[in-house]
């Protein structure tokens, strides 16, 4: 049972990890994209449709990446090239994505999906308790872990990451130094879109292999909150997603056990716990202010 609970927790956390890590990169470059929910929905429908048509879930994942990138590109053009307000454009992107995904997905409703097979290494996967948790996950979950480590490494250990953070902290200075602020931000936004797309595809291909309108059910917003409460650090965002997933699942178990705590309170518990945990681990004010991208949400217009 423990193994099964752990697996469920990991499944619940994975879409959040994808969406949140992607958004983290965009925000680190100084762009606040509130369209995560819309990009996820588009990823979910594109992933489902492509997997259904081709029968290959991996093509579905690729389609989801393309869908997320296209959505993000739209946002990038509007906010970075035409310098529209990021908050309003992000909200519009969410509405647009939810609506458009419903339209595209209309003919895919009520069809069972193609699911992504989990890893199976004879011998290792059969180990008690840890076997399936370590060696028996679906490939996308391994990708989410790799993504977290990779992004962390990129942001803090590479020159490219340094440039990206510089652009997010002070676009004026970065521009003066000769970096192409718009280009860096555009790429970061596209990366965020690709990740959100995969997060959405995870829902429609692994979590619940089906497509229904609005199936993201607010996960894009939770991902956005995780980025802020995780103080723009990939590892903390990862922990936040696991805590959120974990408490969501445990409260369901608590209910099934019949422990007599009101279910409304239990339903609120994942949100409360995640906030409390992330506030505690990020209580160092100085560190928080250094990690907050100073130019977050500010538009950049080069002088010449």
């Amino acid at each position: 049972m423990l193994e099964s609970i752990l697996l469920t927790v990991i499944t619940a956390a994975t879409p959040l990890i994808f969406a949140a890590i992607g958004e983290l990169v965009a925000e680190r470059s100084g762009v606040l994209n509130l369209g995560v929910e819309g990009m996820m929905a588009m990823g979910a429908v594109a992933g489902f449709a492509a997997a259904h048509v081709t029968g290959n879930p991996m093509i579905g994942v690729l389609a989801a990446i393309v869908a997320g990138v296209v959505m993000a590109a739209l946002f990038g053009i509007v906010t970075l090239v035409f310098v529209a307000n990021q908050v309003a454009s992000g909200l519009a992107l969410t509405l647009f994505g939810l609506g458009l995904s419903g339209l595209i997905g209309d003919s895919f409703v009520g069809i069972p999906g193609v699911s992504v097979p989990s890893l199976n290494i004879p011998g290792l996967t059969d180990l008690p308790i840890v076997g399936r948790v370590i060696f028996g996950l679906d490939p996308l979950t391994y990708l989410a872990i790799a993504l977290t480590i990779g992004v962390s490494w990129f942001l803090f250990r590479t020159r490219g990451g340094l440039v990206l953070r510089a652009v997010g902290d002070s676009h004026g200075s970065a521009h003066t130094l000769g970096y192409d602020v718009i280009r860096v931000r555009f790429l970061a936004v596209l990366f965020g879109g690709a990740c959100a797309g995969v997060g959405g595809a995870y829902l429609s291909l692994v979590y619940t292999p089906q497509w229904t309108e609005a199936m993201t059910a607010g996960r894009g917003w939770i991902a956005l909150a995780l980025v802020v409460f995780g103080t723009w650090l990939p590892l903390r965002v990862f922990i936040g997603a696991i805590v959120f997933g974990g408490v969501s699942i445990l409260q369901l178990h608590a209910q099934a056990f019949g422990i007599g705590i009101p279910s409304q309170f239990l339903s609120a518990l994942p949100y409360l716990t995640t906030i409390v945990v992330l506030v505690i681990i990020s209580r160092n004010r100085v560190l928080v202010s250094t990690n907050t991208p100073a130019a977050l949400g500010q538009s950049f217009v080069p002088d010449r």
Partner: protein
Amino acid sequence: MKKVLSAAVAVIALAAGMSAAEAADKLKACWVYVGPHNDGGYSEGHDKGRLYAQEKLGDKIETTYVENVAEGPDAERAIERLARSGCKIIFTTSFGFMDPTIKVAAKFPDVKFEHATGFKTAPNVGTYNSRFYEGRYIQGQIAAKQSKAGVAGYIVSFPIPEVVMGIDAFMLGAQSVNPDFKVKIIWVNSWFDPAKEADAAKALFDQGVDIITQHTDSPAPLQIAQERGLHGFGQAHDMIQFAPKAQYTAIVDTWGPYYEKRINAVLDGTWKPEQSWDGLKDGIMQMAPYTNLPDDVVAMAKKTQADIESGALHPFKGPIVKQDGTEVIPAGQNLDDGTLLGLNWYVKGIDDKLPQ
């Protein structure tokens, strides 16, 4: 978020409504859905009813709907927009639309309103509902016959009478087969969240139940049942294509004929507010084919269904004892509709504490 979305949809509906109203003098019938019109479950059931009415009444009416409307104050705006846009009859299809419907109806005395699954009426507000509990009683019997663990899992949305009634009926059905039958209940506080419903199903299976049923709208729990080689029941819709090996049967909502009847009543001016509550015998709900079951269980289910349809069996027949041991009605009586519609207690044998 849903606020903005539903407002946006309502604005579009309003614009569309105006141009159409100018074009022709058709009766405009409108629907408000709590989920997407194609959720593969509850809201889709209503939408199929809308399409049925549209097909049957053809040129005489035009129909429109607003989907994804959050329950509560938000709904008021969506319903009001429809009323303003020229809808002559508005069907509000979720329990949480009850108070908003009553409020808007007071402002638009010329518009007829019909609210599904609620209990408040007004001179221009009728209610309609389906006796879902009849199907749940049958499901309870099947679960008690089929469960090796002697315990079923029940995924539920909100503690409203409609839902509590379903749990009680399921349990009464199960107890009629196995008096010691148990049920584990999980409230997910949402009508529609496939991932959360799937998580709840996993939690229940992990805790040893081998059959699940649900009062939430997506086929996700059944998919989990299928994945685990266990079983469950479809909700509002025949969900067999999602779980060909897992679904025993499903309660299938069939609202179409009712909608046709009520819109016709508006057309010929005979509409009066009613509290319509039809069941299996009227065809407003049907049981999906009994599948993945041994013959004797299918025979039992069919017999129960026939008895309910003929009136020989009332799922809430006495004696009915509350969770705390107090007897509500003695043997020989059936629970009256008024009590049923306001049901807010569990029958004996359920261990869960009902959220208040």
